[in-house]
């Protein structure tokens, strides 16, 4: 008889996902890919919330995930708007080309 799946396995999976997202944010230069890495880290945090909500039997964790999703949607809308306006002015710009504030 194998043991049932522990909630800590989900936490370890979320830790791995968060680490991949964080290193991707440091490695990649394309602003869009960096934004996707932020989404990866947000999803790792969501997975942690749900795993602990299930483990502790507290529905507040799932409500927190709901709010994280709403904030992530708003963040993506604003962030992609900024990226569109940057790339429209400087086509093909990477994160290294955005060192100065003046467009």
């Amino acid at each position: 008889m194998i043991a049932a799946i522990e909630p800590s396995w989900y936490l370890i999976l979320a830790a791995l996902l968060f680490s991949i997202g964080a290193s991707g944010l440091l490695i990649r230069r394309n602003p869009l890919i960096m934004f996707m890495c932020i989404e990866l880290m947000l999803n790792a945090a969501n997975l942690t919330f749900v795993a602990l909500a299930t483990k502790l039997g507290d529905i507040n964790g799932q409500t927190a995930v709901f709010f994280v999703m709403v904030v992530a949607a708003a963040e993506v809308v604003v962030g992609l708007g900024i990226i569109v306006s940057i790339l429209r002015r400087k086509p093909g710009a990477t994160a290294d080309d955005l060192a100065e504030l003046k467009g």
Partner: protein
Amino acid sequence: MDTTFLEYLVFFAAAAMVLGGAIGVITLKNPVHAALGLVMTLFGIAVQFVAQEAHFLAAVQVIVYAGAIVVLFLFVIMLLGVDNAMDLSIEPIKVQRPLAAIMGLGLASLITAAVIKADSSTVLPGAVGDGIDVATETGDHDSNIKQLAENLYGDHVFAFQLTSVLLVVAVAGTVVLTRKWPKADAEDADASSSTTSGAAK
């Protein structure tokens, strides 16, 4: 035994989807392929939500993330025409990639060690799925949504209403940021930038 084996199968298949998609996001050259890797990761997370009885969040994950956010990403990629493959071999700062890899490994091992230590040393109140896992006991499949709704519209109703303000502000801000102002089109690029920044304030 059989159910446990199925749970293992679901967990490891979804974990492989999550990690494979995430590695695809940070390694693939083409941004469109990276966005598809992101879709795979998000679906894997949705499967993990279902496995933990968070059915409503799994549905929202598929609809909002995979349905709306990734489509927005793909739309911007296609709109800007950056879907040509980027050269990943260019490395502006020489030591950055090894340092980033070391930091990623260190972060992963640190959090994993913390999880294992906390798991072995703490006895948490409540058994696994004590308060949430009512759905399987009663056979009422709406009870996860019902619990979430009672919590959301009861305890957190003010925060819920504030999210509508957040979304309206985000939409209005994006329109201001990305709109090509008609007055600025007639003038030169400098006037256009000052008009846009002035309007954004």
